[in-house]
């Protein structure tokens, strides 16, 4: 695989005088001595190199991207154009509010809209991603108990189907993590929950619908029990695409809810960010939200630094504004009607795919799902793993689903097709999955050897971990 460090350098264009010492008064020992080893390239070399690299990637525009819990929906082109406008892109965050009323107005409106979607009264836009939203939520809960003199509430309960970020965020905020075993159908065991609730309970972290794509039938009972025990309910919003515009976390008993704008509200994932993870909270947590808050006096938008019970800041400025503006454009375009259609078609497509695949692959929980469902690769054929199935899907032209998650399903294949697919592409994916199941029985070597159609085939992870090469090895 060629990197830019392998490309031939052209002659530097610098005039010598440009490179003379530029910092008067700098101690000579503090001036850089060793030259940077970044090659000097001409623009066509760079354009070709990165175009070539881009062809070795798979994006949403390339085809179905059924990553469960990631909501890889289409990213509208308009959004990129809007945020690239200099009026939005070329503004420093320290700009006096009166000169940036447009951005502040959009951010303020966005927080009002997100609050309404969540059914909760207040929102912070600062968190930079979903996990950052979780961490912010944990900070808010910690501060809540601190101000009430209940520091002994140090335990966060979560289920064994939770995203890995949930326990990691709770731990980072200093909470103890208590994992609750799910019922055999993957939903919360309310009796077991009731048994562990006590004076140490700070709260519960829930994903609704859960990571099996199933709506918690007793959600209101779950949240009521936690509230009765003096705890708070945190909702992970990764799966909001399944009910947006039709139901609200606030009505389910959520005290804190985080959005993933890069999932539900169509902003591109960027190969791993930037995302945006706004957090909505109930009234009793509002005083602790990060500062500055964006306020509106009916005429002008400004910054409010006053809340003295605030946790502080989780972002140096206002959050990932460029991402938030794209999500704002998406909400404006969709409106109420469009949002209700998003969740309806997301669920329709998932249920249709589930229906098409459940007789071919093991479906541990056979019922109405929401926007995603989980199959097991177990039992497809002797010696064939979920990895084999996933890798063979690549040869059929599809991005694989999320694999080996949730942990409570062996050999899990977690499939989320999203609303932005045609029936034709869903059928093509289902046909590929069926064909792979047949191959698994008759030609298992095709699965073991997959993928064969890619620039590189299966990579040696052990070698990568054992002898880490994490940067270009320059010849010395």
């Amino acid at each position, binding site marked *: *695989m060629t*990197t*830019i460090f392998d490309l031939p350098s052209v002659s*530097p264009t*610098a005039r010598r005088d440009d490179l003379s010492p530029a910092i008067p008064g*700098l101690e000579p020992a503090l001036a850089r*001595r060793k030259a940077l080893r*970044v*090659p*000097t*390239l001409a623009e066509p070399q*760079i*354009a070709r*190199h990165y175009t070539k690299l*881009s062809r070795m990637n*798979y*994006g949403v*525009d390339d085809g179905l991207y059924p*990553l469960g819990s990631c909501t890889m929906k289409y*990213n509208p082109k308009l959004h990129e154009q809007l*945020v690239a406008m*200099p009026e939005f*892109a*070329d*503004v*420093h965050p*320290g700009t006096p509010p009166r000169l940036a009323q*447009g951005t502040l107005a959009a951010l303020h409106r966005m927080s009002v*809209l997100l609050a309404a979607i969540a059914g909760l009264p207040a929102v912070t836009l600062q968190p*930079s991603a*979903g996990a950052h939203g979780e961490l912010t939520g*944990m900070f808010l809960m910690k501060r809540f108990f601190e101000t009430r003199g209940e520091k002994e509430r140090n335990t966060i309960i979560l289920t064994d189907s939770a995203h890995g*970020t949930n326990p*990691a965020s*709770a731990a*980072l905020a200093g909470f103890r*993590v208590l994992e609750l075993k799910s019922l055999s159908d993957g939903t919360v065991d309310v009796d077991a929950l009731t048994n562990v609730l006590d004076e140490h309970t700070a709260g519960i972290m829930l994903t609704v619908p859960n990571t099996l794509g199933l709506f918690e039938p007793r959600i209101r009972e779950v949240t009521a029990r936690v509230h009765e025990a003096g705890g708070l309910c945190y909702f992970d919003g990764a799966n909001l695409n399944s*009910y947006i515009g039709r*139901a609200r976390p606030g*009505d389910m008993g959520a005290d804190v809810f985080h959005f*993933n704008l890069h999932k539900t509200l169509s902003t*591109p*994932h*960027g*190969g791993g*960010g930037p995302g945006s993870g706004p957090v909505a909270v109930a009234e009793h947590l509002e005083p602790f939200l990060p500062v500055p808050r964006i306020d509106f006096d009916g005429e002008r938008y400004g910054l409010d630094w006053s809340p003295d019970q605030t946790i*502080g800041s989780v972002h*140096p400025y206002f959050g990932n504004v460029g*991402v938030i503006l794209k999500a704002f454009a998406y909400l404006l375009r969709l409106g109420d009607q469009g949002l209700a*259609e998003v969740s309806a078609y997301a*669920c329709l497509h998932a249920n249709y795919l589930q229906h098409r695949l459940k007789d071919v692959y093991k479906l541990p929980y056979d019922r*109405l799902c929401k926007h995603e469902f989980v199959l097991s690769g177990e039992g497809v054929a002797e010696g064939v793993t979920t990895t084999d199935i996933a890798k063979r899907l*690549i040869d059929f032209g599809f*991005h694989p689903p999320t694999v080996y998650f949730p942990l409570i399903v062996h050999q899990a294949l977690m499939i989320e097709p999203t609303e*932005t697919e045609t029936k034709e592409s869903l059928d093509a994916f289902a046909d590929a999955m069926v064909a792979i199941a047949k191959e698994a029985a008759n030609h298992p070597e095709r699965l073991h050897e997959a993928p064969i159609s890619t620039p*590189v085939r299966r*990579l040696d992870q052990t070698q990568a971990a054992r002898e880490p*090469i*994490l*940067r270009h090895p320059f010849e010395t």
Partner: protein
Amino acid sequence: MRYIPTSDADREAMLSAIGLSSLDELFADIPAEILDGNKPLGLPSLTEQEVAATFSQLAQRNPAARAFASFQGGGIYDHYVPAIVPYVLSRSEFATAYTPYQPEISQGTLTAMFEFQTMICELTGMEIANASLYDGATALAEAALMANRIRRRHRIAVSRALFAGVARVLQTYAWAAEIELIELPIGPDGRTVFDHLPEDLSAVLVQSPNALGIIEDLRGVKDAIGDALLVVSVHPISLAIIEPPASVGADIVVGEGQPLGLTRSFGGPLLGLFATQERYIRHMPGRIAGRTSDVDGRSGFTMTAQTREQHIRRQRATSNICTNSALCALAATVYMASLGADGLARVASASARRAHDLCDRLEQISGVSRLFPGPFFNEFTVRVPQDPSRIHRALQQGGFLIDDPSDLSRLGVENAVRIAVTEKRTDEELKRFTRVFEEA
């Protein structure tokens, strides 16, 4: 049906296949009292043209971008972004891809991550770098948490001269993790004073150039802080001409990567830089790409050292971070590739030269003088004879933006303003800026 390509006929066919007769029945598993509670937002659906018009109207209320020249800084700077950068980012294979969990179809993202890590190692002089964190502020907070994990202590000394937003984020994380932060004062030369350090520190955190613009001299600091880790927050472009922190024995180097080809976008998205030494790899937060080979012996890239991460280690992970700033890291990679070593040095030199030129001009004004004698890169602080907010306002009226002087009051510095200059500021702008400053 804005972005939903399903035809009515296909909808009916799919409903009938799953034995339902309407879309609403897909929500039969949600308790009725929850569905009944839903309230519409009161939002009509707009056409694409109407959304674009709405944004144009909002844009008109953002005069900062077009009608003002920016001398703002504090970690976010107005550097020129070559056209190749947004072009590469606009390719949807990069922009719309997920985190590269499937390396065979993610070699584009993974190769760029490897290039990025190499460039950050080159800039900082460190042995390893991750593929990005959210921003420079959370990168510093993560460095503090990492130092605590390594040293198993909870006390950290931190220079007072951090940028305001960075300091706020650090304080928030420190409160939650029950870290005791001890503030190190600023000496008469504008540099952090490392004397009289308390015992049992897990780390010493310092920013260079610091919030007053002064380039710290960290020689000897490592010896003075015992076994505490030295964590340095940097301005990446300055490292093209300033000696990298590795040369003074830094254990962790972090920084805000925005100057490397990202627009300012009212402060986000940003790019957290994070580099350290190889011996600390198991403690490092964030994604890492590594080179390996495939079953046919061809070289390729994959994410590695994932056993540190939340999706495997859960509550024992080194960080909760998942989505980070991959596309911003790609921007920085393309930016550095397009400039090359010489270009980066020229951007750094030109920014510094113009900053010093402006500082010299301002010092000609009666009552205006540099606050500290220490050397500065592209940002400096000058004492002013009048109320600094008056200068701030006068400059605004003259078409210039500088940081709010209240950023400095936090550092105990009154009657002063901080000014940042990049290679984009013209001689004409520097002259006019000086004139407006003088007349304020």
